């Protein structure tokens, strides 16, 4: 029976010239990285997939410099986030909406549309709020890991996450406590 390889094993095999090991790493991380970028792009799947592709190509050329201080997932999220920031800085293609605007998808949300709903709701958040609430709640990262990705102080991270959760809860019409 084949046992799943660890990230370190796959990285070693790739650095020794095994391209299949790289493909295995892409398969392992493509889903969370693409979903992370879809949240940042607030539903622009084409942009998110372009950025995800760029992220893995950067991994391809830079994996030899990966020191393993943080996990591979954290490292990839950092690359994805920076690629996304660079793109936003040069293209300004991000969509934002006012707080009091309720997306139409909210009315059909109880079905299987939670992904679309979340991506639509992300348009109500600033980029930092999108980033930090996604890494925290969706990606399950600790505040320290988020600080590793964003280089932001812990206090700033907590405040962005709380503000984002409050906005999202308000959009959902929920009274749940977010702090």
């Amino acid at each position, binding site marked *: 029976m084949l046992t799943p390889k660890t990230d370190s094993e796959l990285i070693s095999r790739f650095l020794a010239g095994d391209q299949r090991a*790289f493909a295995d790493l892409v398969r392992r991380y493509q*889903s969370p990285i693409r*979903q992370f970028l879809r949240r940042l792009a607030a539903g622009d799947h084409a942009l998110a997939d372009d950025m995800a592709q760029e992220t893995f190509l950067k991994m391809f050329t830079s994996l030899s410099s990966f020191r393993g201080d943080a996990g591979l997932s954290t490292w990839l999220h950092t690359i994805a986030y920076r690629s996304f920031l660079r793109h936003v800085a040069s293209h300004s293609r991000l969509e934002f909406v006012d707080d009091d605007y309720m997306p139409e998808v909210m*009315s059909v949300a109880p079905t299987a549309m939670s992904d679309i709903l979340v991506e639509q709701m992300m348009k109500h958040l600033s980029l930092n709020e999108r980033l930090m609430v996604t890494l925290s709640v969706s990606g399950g990262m600790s505040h320290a890991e988020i600080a590793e990705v964003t280089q932001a102080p812990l206090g700033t991270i907590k405040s962005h996450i709380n503000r984002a959760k409050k906005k999202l809860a308000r959009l959902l019409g929920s009274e749940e406590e977010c702090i």
Partner: protein
Amino acid sequence: MTDLPPLDKLLAYDRHLEGEAFTRKVMAQAARRGHRGWILGGSALLSLAVAMGIKPDNFTMFADLRLPLHLLDNVAASVSASGLVAALLIAALVVGTGKTIDSM
């Protein structure tokens, strides 16, 4: 708006995105990136040789180095004018090809 899951559950990545097509695309691009290094390296060397052939006096700083760069210089200097034009065309073609590959 009823029956929505709690916020934390709603935000979770609880769906696995099918990734074979995406992975194939990344692998194809990665292979091109790998080739690009050789293409750009070759183009840079060729350009250096051409430049040294056209203006050898501008490369006297290499004379102090105990490196076999003078061999490259000699090769470049021995290329005829038509050869230089051809080399320039080849370099342009190679760089253009590299860019085209990247944009695919």
